[in-house]
């Protein structure tokens, strides 16, 4: 899972450097490409936000966890998880059922900037039956706010579809590209 994602991300980066035409030619496999922007905030005592990214179906049921970035401190299993319920939608829909860390999903908090994620593993895509979904990104920051950005999409796509929704404070632009 982890390897797949890493590989997918590398492919995505390499191909986007080469340009669109090459992507169409080289990419036969369907996948979802996501970027999550963590905005620069001019506040004192800034802490990187906890962020969860997932795909949910029309009933708000989580079909695929994509990423959870939290403070992985200490060597004890499950340490640093105390504030995970602040990602309250994710916690309710999925987080509380998981034993952290989850291979290929959990990661350390990320700095300000745009972060790329790819969903392209066969196992992940097999969860997506044809229908309406939403990519959901939730962020919660210590001494800061909490925000949730939803990007609705249809699966599968017959042609490449791109979506972008911007957060107001805790999240910048969230983009989703659905490749057929």
């Amino acid at each position, binding site marked *: 899972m982890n390897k797949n994602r890493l590989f997918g991300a590398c492919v995505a980066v390499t191909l986007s450097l080469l340009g669109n035409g090459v992507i169409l030619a080289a990419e036969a496999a369907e996948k979802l490409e996501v970027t999550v922007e963590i905005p620069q905030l001019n506040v004192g005592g800034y802490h990187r936000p906890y962020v969860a990214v997932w795909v949910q179906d029309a009933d708000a049921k989580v079909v695929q966890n994509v990423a959870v970035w939290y403070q992985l401190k200490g060597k004890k299993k499950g340490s640093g998880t105390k*504030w995970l319920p602040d990602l*309250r939608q994710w916690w*309710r829909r999925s*987080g*509380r059922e998981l034993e952290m860390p989850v291979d290929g999903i959990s990661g350390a908090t990320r700095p300000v900037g745009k972060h790329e994620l790819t969903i392209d593993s066969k196992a992940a895509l097999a969860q997506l039956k044809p229908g309406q979904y939403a990519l959901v990104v939730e962020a919660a920051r210590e001494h800061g706010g909490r925000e949730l950005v939803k990007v609705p999409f249809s699966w599968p796509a017959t042609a490449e579809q791109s979506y972008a929704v911007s957060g107001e404070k805790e999240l910048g632009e969230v983009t989703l590209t659905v490749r057929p």
Partner: protein
Amino acid sequence: MLRSTLTSLLFVSLFSLTAVAHNVWLLPSQTVLSGEDPWITVDAAVSNDLFYFNHFPLSLDNLQIVAPDGAQVEAANQATGKYRSVFDLQLQQQGTYRIAVLNHGLFGSWNENGESRRWRGTPESFAKEVPSDAQDLRVSESVGRVETFVTNGAPNEVALKPTGKGIELIAVTHPNDLFAGEKSRFRFLVDGKPAAGLKVQVIRGETRYRNSPEATHLTTDAEGEFSVTWDEPGMYWLETSTQDEKTTIPQAQSRRLSYAATLEVLPQ
């Protein structure tokens, strides 16, 4: 020890005589938790409004905490102050804890040589303390449960199993899975059986900051069930009471049953 006995007596009298006028509650610091053996702290009080410590502490003598595996666990750092009691609890298991203060008391009055006598006690102490030939003896029984729920990790329902005694809340919707704008469903049991026609009152906390309590009044249906739609997130107090003649000892004429729960409703 003396202090705790006094408090307990005072509490019992308050609970019995003015239960209608006062709100009895437990207030957990948090209801949804995660991490390595997280701690919560809980306040316990009797007050006029919710959730403020301004009247009387709730005695912790009959505190009963059921852990997610169904076993009873002890609270740490118990203390009783002027207006509230407090205790801490470390959630060493994953799942849902049921935290309750249980009350089971008897109240008697009779005439002795032309003077009226009053007595408070338990079914166990009744025979010892009340003369068997007491004249004009009137005894009432009181069974109360004041509780709240907290969950570490994923909710489970082992601790929520009914004990079959008094009024109990059965979670059709899990009590740590309540969200603003959603409808939650519960069932009330009396002695383990669905209780139809119970009048239920639901009040959101922070009553100090509005003009009226804005209580929602509901009635349980034939299956003992009722639904609540939570307009706003917050700590809610849910209360019901009833009366019957199913007393533990034959000398008691009536039994008063009461129930109060503190439920946290989270924002979406």
